[in-house]
């Protein structure tokens, strides 16, 4: 079983996202430790990109803060190598195709595996283009995570059948960011995934910020993913963000475990 699959094996998962280097990599390291200690089951580490086209304004600004601070892919690798000594839960990179491709896909993935990364999420690489990255991911022992969206309909079966690690279920149309309400029938999407691939876990992301939303999403899936709400805390607390983010993650983990 891949390490990512293990994260979903026992109970509903809570998956926080953080942009590496926002506002600096020392803070990111502390935040990752705080998240793990607070009960996160898997952590998404965003490698900042100059033009994050799938992100709403909160994460766009997080990317900008990180890049302005001089973060590079190599520095992110070094940070992960350090934090890996202390943090045992699975960690995946979330970034854009060009960050990986431009580094040299094989070189990037070999290095990612070496520093202790377990998977890769590329929001601008759909099923049709995954052959660009999937063979190299497999060779390096990383899961290339597939995404499904409310518009995927008949595509869900095809995507789920080949999914590795977990399926990232995009809750709503649009870019990342906090939403007051999620109207998509997530349960129906998850059922289609499980029909095509009973083995694979399904985590829901985009728009989730409150414990109530997380509980609702986790109830119909295998876990909840939160990004913008955490990046907001980075924005608010800067170098002091590890404490407040730890508390937030703890409350969200309690929420996803709640039984109705």
């Amino acid at each position, binding site marked *: 079983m891949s390490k990512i699959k293990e994260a979903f094996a026992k109970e509903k998962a809570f998956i926080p996202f953080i942009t590496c280097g926002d506002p600096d990599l020392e803070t990111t390291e502390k935040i990752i430790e705080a998240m793990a200690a607070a009960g996160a089951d898997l952590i998404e580490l965003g490698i900042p990109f100059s033009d994050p086209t799938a992100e709403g304004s909160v994460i766009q600004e997080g990317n900008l803060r990180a890049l302005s601070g001089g973060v590079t892919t190599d520095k992110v690798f070094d940070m992960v190598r350090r934090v890996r000594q202390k943090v045992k839960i699975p960690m995946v990179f979330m970034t854009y195709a060009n960050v990986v491709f*431009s580094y040299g896909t094989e070189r990037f993935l070999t290095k990612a595996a070496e520093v202790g990364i377990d998977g890769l999420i590329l929001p*601008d*690489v*759909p099923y049709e283009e995954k052959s*660009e990255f999937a063979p190299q991911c497999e060779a390096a022992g990383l899961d290339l995570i597939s995404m499904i*969206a409310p*518009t995927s309909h008949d595509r869900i079966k095809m995507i789920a059948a080949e999914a590795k690690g977990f399926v990232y279920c995009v809750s709503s*149309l649009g*870019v990342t960011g906090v939403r007051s309400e999620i109207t998509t029938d997530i349960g129906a999407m998850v059922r289609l995934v499980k029909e095509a691939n009973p083995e694979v876990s399904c985590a829901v992301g985009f728009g989730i910020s409150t414990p109530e939303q997380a509980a609702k999403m986790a109830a119909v899936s295998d876990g909840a993913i939160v990004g913008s709400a955490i990046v907001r805390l980075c924005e608010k607390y800067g170098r002091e963000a590890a404490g407040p983010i730890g508390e937030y993650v703890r409350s969200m983990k309690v929420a996803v475990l709640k039984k109705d």
Partner: protein
Amino acid sequence: MTKGRFGIHGGQYIPETLMNAVLELEKAYDFYKNDPKFNQELTALLNDYAGRPSRLYYAKRMTEDLGGAKIYLKREDLNHTGAHKVNNALGQCLLAKKMGKTRVIAETGAGQHGVATATAAALMGLECEIYMGKEDTIRQALNVYKMRLLGAKVHAVESGTATLKDAVSETFREWVSRIDDTHYVLGSVMGPHPFPTIVRDFQAVISKEIKEQILEAEGKLPDAVLACVGGGSNAIGAFYHFIEDKDVRLIGCEAAGRGVNTAETAATIATGRLGIFHGMKSYFCQDEFGQIAPVYSISAGLDYPGIGPEHAMLYDSGRAEYVAVTDDEAVEAFEYMSRTEGIIPAIESAHAVSYAMKLAPTMTKDQIIVINISGRGDKDCAAIARYRGEDIHE
């Protein structure tokens, strides 16, 4: 190899949320491109509304002054809305209408594609929203007013460098949020498949006409066709029907900005490398870690860090050549053509005029150069005056 490839370039590198939308678009386009009724309607719009065919004008004074090859100007500047952009805007808006869409969105750099899309939307009764970099709304204030006059809503994009690439990113973000009733009228031969093919097909009317017109005027094909290249839609339009005619040199003129050895450049072929961005694999200006470079050109329409995938392929195969032209050279050409031929070219097109000024004297008098004058320069007059230190109001 996946769909929509030009050699190794192209593809569909977009969020899953948009996949069914581009598949639907591809299916619709595959049907309508062969539909006689659609083509009749589009031709009628191009001819009766946009004023096609555009003239191929023999620039006698430039020819004599430069003392070499005969120079012809393909007058896309004479189209309704003043640029080649209307060819694609009419095509895509008509397609959107056939697909049952009621709303179109588009990015714009210099504002020409925004004006063309707003125009086509007004004509066809479509709701229209345009995304334009904040920097560009300042550089091209008149076009912002025109778009609003035509009934479009204009959003000034403040993210990133607040220029064309950010406008493209923002339009994609908007499209992901609202797909059902909305078509994204992409303005250049870029983005995910099928856009590079659709836009090329709608612009290919330029080279189809050049070919007929030059054969009529000279009884032979030109020796070289020149066009400016940002994303590359007017260039691919001017090149397309000559690609098989191997003796015709195809020369794309990129914006070097303050020079290809400076950071302030937008010359993708000269300074970029292979990457994946805005839905396509192609060449992009980027740093060693793949961060997209904040490019610069005096021309808002060429101020883009990438190039369309078909151009990337034509460059790889050597079929087309790409040269870089600086701001200074383009401004000189802008002024030269104005006073020599009485034609004020868009500052974008002036990049191609500039290279023609270098090339023509090296050629013989029986050789022929066609320059695609992709747009008119009225929109640029205030900015060029400022560049020359003269502060005028628009």
